[in-house]
């Protein structure tokens, strides 16, 4: 590290004698930093705040010019419209939310069930071309979705998986498996293999040893990994819009996107639907905040 010592030699008085002017400068700078941070935080959070405000405004206030920040009438009508259709039945949006729950949930379970044992195997055993296998697994995540969606579309058309929840579940699971393996391999690496060795000396088979000793220690890691997979499937849009079309199969992202277009857009409804849709993600993200870095980079950057 290039920290030069020479710099210090010639300078004057002892270091605790900071002149008052300079001390004030430091204080001023600190204030400036806080101010800057506040401005940045406001800018980053304003759009979210504005969406929440829009979702509880009456329509005439939504389109008010100039925009109304205060003093509008609060209404929950838009939230009711998200869940209840005008004729009193279930709205198309609420059906799509339910589809999202099913698709994201099942694909996450599938990715976890396939990914965790694989991660354990990659962590514990020497294998032929292990590094190449792991790199191959990671590389499947780097393809542009638009490129993959063309052959997937043709393939699904052949086997009847177009406009089918199972089709979405399979493709989301395939997209989450690489992530699950990379992330979980890191967690398994941190559990000493001596536990398993000891258990095997006691007469357990290797699978039993994994099941009884290693797996319980992996539970927090599995939970964090699953939450990331869940968020990814929940937010995914490209495959969802090209592989589904009917209201009964569509997940929430294309359904919400479908609210715009046409001649008029009910922005109050869009805002309410977006807020409802974003809420679970924010809760989940808060739960895994400690693992965020490993999560968003597929475990490629570990702390």
């Amino acid at each position: 590290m290039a920290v030069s010592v020479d710099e210090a030699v010639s300078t004057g008085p002892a270091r605790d004698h900071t002149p008052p002017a300079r001390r004030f400068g430091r204080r001023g700078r600190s204030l400036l930093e806080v101010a800057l941070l506040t401005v940045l935080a406001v800018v980053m959070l304003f759009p979210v705040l504005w969406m929440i405000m829009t979702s509880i405004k009456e329509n005439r206030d939504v389109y008010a010019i100039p925009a109304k920040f205060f003093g509008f009438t609060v209404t929950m009508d838009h939230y009711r419209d998200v869940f209840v259709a005008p004729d009193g039945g279930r709205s198309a949006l609420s059906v799509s939310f339910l589809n999202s729950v099913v698709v994201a949930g099942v694909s996450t379970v599938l990715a976890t069930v396939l990914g965790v044992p694989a991660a354990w195997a990659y962590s514990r055993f020497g294998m032929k071309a292990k590094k190449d296998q792991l790199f191959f697994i990671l590389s499947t995540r780097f393809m542009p979705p638009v490129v993959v969606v063309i052959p997937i579309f043709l393939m699904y058309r052949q086997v009847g998986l177009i406009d089918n929840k199972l089709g979405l579940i399979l493709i989301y699971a395939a997209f989450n498996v690489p992530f699950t393996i990379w992330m979980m391999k890191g967690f398994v690496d941190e559990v000493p293999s001596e536990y398993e060795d000891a258990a095997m000396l006691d007469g357990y088979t290797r699978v039993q040893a994994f099941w009884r000793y290693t797996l319980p220690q992996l539970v927090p890691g599995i939970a964090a990994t699953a939450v990331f997979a869940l968020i990814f499937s929940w937010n995914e849009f490209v495959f969802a819009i090209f592989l589904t079309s009917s209201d009964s199969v569509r997940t929430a992202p294309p359904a919400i996107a479908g609210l715009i277009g046409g001649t008029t857009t009910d922005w109050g409804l869009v805002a309410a639907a977006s807020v409802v849709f974003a809420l679970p993600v924010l809760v989940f993200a808060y739960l895994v905040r400690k693992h965020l870095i490993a999560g968003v980079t597929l475990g490629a950057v570990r702390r």
Partner: protein
Amino acid sequence: MSDRGLAVVFTSPALLLLLAMSVFPLLWALYLSFTDYSATRGGPAEFVGFGNYTAILTSEQVHLRALTTLIYVVGAVTLQTVLGFGIAYLISRRTRGRGALTTMFLVPMMLSPVVVGLFWRFMLDAQFGVVNSMLGSLGLGQVEWLTRQRTALLSLIVVDTWQWTPFIMLIALAGLSAVPKYLYEAASIDRASEWFRFRTITLPLVWPLLLIAVMFRAIEAFRLFDLVYILTNGGPGVSTETMSFHIYKVAFLGFNTGTASAYGILMVLVVIVLTQLYLRYLNKLKEG
């Protein structure tokens, strides 16, 4: 069961899924890229050799989309990196409230591109959008953000920056908090200036991590599709059509499946080559 057998049993289901859903489609796209297949016309695909590839590589339209994509990727990633690192630096200098601040700044990153696109489309509306409303109350003129060619691309960059600055911030913050404290202590004993400390201690230590973050962002930005689809739908005209969006148009609106596949394969190749070069550079940097 032997360890070897166990390894095979545990890894093969995952590998099979990947083969079926990623490798097979990619190979199929590779095959289609050499044919004149059209998903609507159907019928047997005629082999056309490298015809699709030469058509793509010599197409004026594609050159224009490549330029748009380049402007967007460079603009957005640069902005995000500067802002993200700046915020991380400011946060790292606070002793209190760090966790809360970080969590707060992360919100945009967790949202679905659909929600983000819609948020901003609403806010940037020329008539009743809150952005123009605020500009108006400051006495500034109105801007047609999404309906003018130049401002539309700028809007796209701004929105992407809004969503992904937290990503760079998160990684920069990890790098910043990993800098050993004793280095700063040593520097302060030496009465090194703030700027000197930043330049000789902080930056060199965070730099490699920051470069990895930039790579991740650049790959993602290069293949951007959903935000364009929601925010501008490629318009006005073709001013915000990125390459991914163009592929979609060729494949699903023009139904030139073969051409679109060749286009996609070329994009994948670009990503692979550039990533490899970049990683090689990163490794050199680490050794040096």
